[in-house]
């Protein structure tokens, strides 16, 4: 990997980081467990590594934006996540912020 590639990779990760949180919050307006969430995001064109997505869910739950519960499905215990009340409010605010940002970028371009 050249220096330019490395720089691009770092900037790309930086750019994606905030968007991933927004996408996860958006997707969790409906209940999901880790793997189905990952699949759902991938179907919308957003591939996320397991090592990024699953810890992110935990972090968002610690921050009070998600709630979770263990339930059995297909004879297997799974932890299902969905937006909490705080998470819903935060999602609306972040979405507004993202739309404004997107509009500005579009205007600049």
């Amino acid at each position, binding site marked *: 990997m050249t220096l330019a590639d490395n720089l691009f990779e770092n900037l790309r990760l930086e750019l994606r980081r905030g968007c991933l949180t927004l996408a996860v919050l958006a997707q969790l307006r409906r209940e999901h*467990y*880790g*793997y*189905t969430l*990952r699949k759902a995001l991938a179907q919308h064109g957003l591939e996320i*590594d*397991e*090592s*990024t997505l*699953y*810890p992110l869910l*935990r*972090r968002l739950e*610690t921050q009070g934006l998600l709630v979770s519960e263990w339930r059995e499905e*297909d004879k*297997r*215990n*799974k*932890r299902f996540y969905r937006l909490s009340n705080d998470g819903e409010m935060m999602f609306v605010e972040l979405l507004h912020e993202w739309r404004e940002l997107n509009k500005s970028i579009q205007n600049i371009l």
Partner: protein
Amino acid sequence: MNLLDRYLLAVKKYLPWKRQDDILAELKGNLESQLEEKEADLGRTLTSDEMQDWVKHLGPPMVMAGRYQPQQYLIGPTIFPMYWWVMRLALLWCLVIYSVIKAVEIIANSPTGSAVLNGVLGAPWVLLITAAWVTAVFAAIEFATTHSLAKFPADIVGHVDWSPGSLPTAEEAGSGGKRPRSFAHAVTEVVFGFLALIWLLLIPSYPFLLMGPGAAYLRMSPYQLATVWVPFFWCIVALNVVQLGWRLIDLVRGTRQNSRALQHLTVKTIGLAATLILFTAPHREWVLLKHPAIDAARYGAAVNSINHGIYTALLWVVAISVMVWLWQIGQMGVDYYRKRVAAEK
């Protein structure tokens, strides 16, 4: 035990122990679902090589587990700029202080090659220990700010309550944060500099101007000053003359507002030279007995003790002066480099 179980076991080792089982159960559920679906798509179980590839794509166990840690860094981006600034300052000062202390120690004892080598080899350890302390302190600050932001002083967290009004003006910034001198200030400096010079020149004839009643005591006491104080005195006079001359020139030329770094350096160099002159005193004696043959038995110990005290004080004065001198040279070097870089642009 299949490869996935072995992977999960390896991940477990690095997980935060309080939530280890919960995280592992969730991760296992997610990965097993994924594996199951993959195998259902293929219509068969994965071969050993395919399983290896799939587990490899999950990433090293330490990385996977590390992302579950509540804090990913020792010193976060909020306080990192301050950490870096303090670190550079601490290392620089530590090196300067260490060098001066070692130099003085070596000169005062026996300046051998092995003493110099030991001093040089000791420097990295001192710097390492300083860096470790600075890092430990800032890691503790980071920990405290992440765990109880409200309780922590805002100015340490990130200068939240700084005031734009406290920013230095362009003139202040150019003169190292000092306000420019007014005309009245510059004139007062010249007048008082002149008076100070006259006062200094009168001291040899009228020692009471310096020592007050102590002059009479010295005259009657069995002690006298060594001759090394004479060149020291003239060096101090020269220092005052240079300072006064420079201030006069600045006043006449209208460049009184900010004194230049070169002026400061010259004054400090003469001051340092004056102090170093004192080290030329034979047998490290700055105070002597007027009649050694008569008074040695009674006052010999006292005079030795006085000379030892003067010697220790001089060592400290030289150490501090050298540090200030080196700091100023360093600052001049940095200013010169910045100007050169700016000119090249």
